[in-house]
C-alpha cells in the first residue's frame, strides 16, 4: 500500500474541535467485477481504518466494497491536549499501513 496523506490543522488549542482528513491510494476492488476472460477479479479492499490520539481511540471505520477507490475519510476530534495521532489502514489479508503524526498544540 502507498503512503497515505493526512491533513491536520497547522496548530490547535486544547478544547478545539478539529477536522482530520485522510486519503490513501487503493484500488478497492469490489470482488464483483470480471476480467476480460470472464473470471471474477478477487476482492481486495481496505476494510478497516482507525485513528487514535495520545493512545486514546478517536475514530474507527469498517469499510465495505461500497467505498470508492482511493478511500477518503474525514472526521473530527476535540483536542484533549498535546499528543500524537496514530492512523492505521488495514487491507484484506491483513497488510497494514501505520502513520504517526504529531499535532501542534499551542
Amino acid at each position, binding site marked *: 500500500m502507498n503512503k497515505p496523506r493526512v491533513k491536520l490543522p497547522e496548530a490547535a488549542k486544547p478544547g478545539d*474541535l478539529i477536522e482530520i482528513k485522510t486519503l490513501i491510494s487503493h484500488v478497492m476492488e*469490489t*470482488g*464483483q*467485477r*470480471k476480467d476480460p476472460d470472464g473470471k471474477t477479479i478477487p476482492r481486495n479492499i481496505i476494510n478497516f481504518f482507525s485513528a487514535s*490520539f495520545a493512545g*486514546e*481511540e*478517536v*475514530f*474507527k*471505520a*469498517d*469499510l*465495505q*466494497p*461500497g*467505498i*470508492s*477507490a482511493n*478511500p*477518503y*475519510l*474525514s*472526521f*473530527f*476530534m*476535540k483536542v*484533549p491536549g498535546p499528543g500524537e495521532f496514530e492512523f492505521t489502514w488495514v487491507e484484506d489479508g491483513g497488510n497494514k499501513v501505520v502513520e504517526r503524526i504529531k499535532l501542534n498544540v499551542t
Partner: protein
Amino acid sequence: MKDAQATPLIDRRAFATGAGALALLAGSAGRLSAQATEPAWQQALKSLVGDVKPLEGKVTLELPEIAENGNTVPLTVSVESPMTANDYVKAIHVIATENPQPGVATFRFSPLSGKASAASRMRLARTQEVIGLAELSDGKFLIGRRSVKVTIGGCGG
C-alpha cells in the same frame, strides 16, 4: 414491490447480495431463508437494530441530489449529539439500498470525537435511497434517508 420488468435483475442481484448479507449477518442460517422475500438492505438493517424501531429523521446525510458518476459519490453523515462520556453517538452505519452489497461503511465514534460526523466517498450502483443508521450510547437508534439519482452506475460490473 418488484414489477415484472425488474425480474431479470433479481437473480443476479440476489446472488451478489448473498455474499454481502453473509458478511453482515455473520452467516446466520435462519436469515438465509428470508432472503427470497426480503431485500438485502432490509436484512442488513434488521441485523443491526433487531426489532427496535429507529427514530426517524435525526441522521443527516449530505449527498448530491444527482450523482453523475456512481463510482465516487461524496457523502457526509452526521448526528447532533453532545458527545460526552455519558451521551454520545457510538456509530453511524451507511446502507445503500440498491447496491449489490448494501452495507457500505460503519463509522465508529468516541467521546473524544467531539462531533458525530464523518465524510467519505461511496459507490452507488444505480438511483436509490441511502440510509444512515446511528447507534447511541444509551442503546437507541436514529435513522435518516436520502435519495440520489445516479447517471452512470458505479459498481464496475
